[in-house]
């Protein structure tokens, strides 16, 4: 009986150790939002990793949509900040922006996203890495 408990406890410990490896925190920040505009559904997905960012939007209506991301990254060797804004091409149903930094010394700090349907900003969000 006692050995059965020991066996179960050992298994549990092994499981906890294995799980601890699988739940290493993912260094990312993300946001998801969905709603309707003029009776049609839209959704906005924002993600910010240390060296990548994404902003994507889908809309079921006929208006053109676009995404803007204003972001801030640093050169960790010289602690110099960089600021930029990227804008997607306005188009129907899907629009997206993405940026991926090529050097490991460059790290994103934060990003602000604006999601537009036609000329109107329908959703804004900010992510901090």
């Amino acid at each position, binding site marked *: 009986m006692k050995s059965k408990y020991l066996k179960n406890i050992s298994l549990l410990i092994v499981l906890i150790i294995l799980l601890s490896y699988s739940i290493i925190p993912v260094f990312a920040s993300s946001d998801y939002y969905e709603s309707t505009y003029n009776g049609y559904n839209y959704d906005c997905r924002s993600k910010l990793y240390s060296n990548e960012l994404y902003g994507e939007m889908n809309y079921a209506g006929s208006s053109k949509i676009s995404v803007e991301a204003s972001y801030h990254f640093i050169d960790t060797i010289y*602690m*110099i900040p*960089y600021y930029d804004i990227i804008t997607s091409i306005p188009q129907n149903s899907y629009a997206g922006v993405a*940026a991926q930094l090529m050097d490991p010394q460059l790290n994103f700090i934060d990003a602000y996203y604006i999601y537009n349907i036609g000329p109107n900003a329908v959703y804004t969000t900010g992510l901090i890495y």
Partner: protein
Amino acid sequence: MLKNMYRLIILILIVGCLASCLMLVSCNKKNIQQSAESLNSKPESYYTSYKQGFSAARFLETPYGTYFSSRDGYLYYSENGNAKYIKLCNKPDCNHNSIDCNAYIKWYKIGYYYKKIYYITGNALNCMDMDGSNHRNIKALYEGYDNNFGYFHNGYYYYVITKGGSIGAFGNEDNNLYRVKVDDDSAPEIVLTNDAILRLYMFTIVGEDIYIIEFNADATKVASLYSFSTISKNWTILTDNWVGAGAYYLDDDKGYCYMRNIGFYEYDLTTNEMNLVKPTELDDIGTCSAFYYPDYIYLIHYNSNPPSYQSQILYIYDRDYNLIDSIKFDKVYGKSTTGGFIGDVDKYVIFSSNYNEKPDYYIDKSEIGTGNLMFHKIED
């Protein structure tokens, strides 16, 4: 009779209101003009040439005062850099909190050239008067929605087109450095074409030469330094052991750089020799940036491991590499906040506790080396 009196009083009140509004507008113009008269002791080339700072094309010293392009999309003005930064708008009925405000430019890159502030929004070059009024579009730099990186220098905007979003990003396909004259309707021109532009770290313009700093593919080295003569069109590699933006300076004769945890180097541009001229004795942790100005070299040591903006010490050297003074800057709060050195403006060294916001601290240069060096708060 009484009715006429009322009419007269109302008329006087209306005229009074209009006159006070006009006075407010003209006062703003007058203040900015006065500061030009009091500060304009340097040649225009001093103000129109790109200078080192915390980030390209966001902080401007001009004969009319100091301008700061903030992350919030607004342009701020300070008379000497150490005085309160106010949104650059003189519209009497503006609450300075909407895209209709004269100070709202949305994008960040600003430059000065002969009594005008120039700024980039997307692919467009625009300008405004020094008091923030009279915004107008000048020309498009290129077609489409790609981003660009660059800065204003001596009447031109120099830039690279960054399809990937930024320099240092994957996806950049255009290997040209362009420039466009800011005050006429001429088309942009290609200054140089080279694949090093695709891995551009920074570029520096000195006279007729352009220096390109490229991210080094060798992980043990930081950057490579190239020179390009706009006259002879010669492209030369100077060294593959250079540093990045924030730790070097180039003039007609020499290159200057700081190698972290080693010291100050000088590169002789005529003999191509690079020598360690001043070893430094900082703790062997953290990292440094170095900004070279006519009077001083500002070495900033981020002395924690890993390096952090919360822990930084400013070392001030003269141009012969003698350490004159040092002071801790501990005003940056929050793990995701960046802040610190902004620039050297006339009598002051400007700092910010948060780079996303307007500058809020300064050093009075007359206090350097006196034993009384301190950070002063830029008060409202």
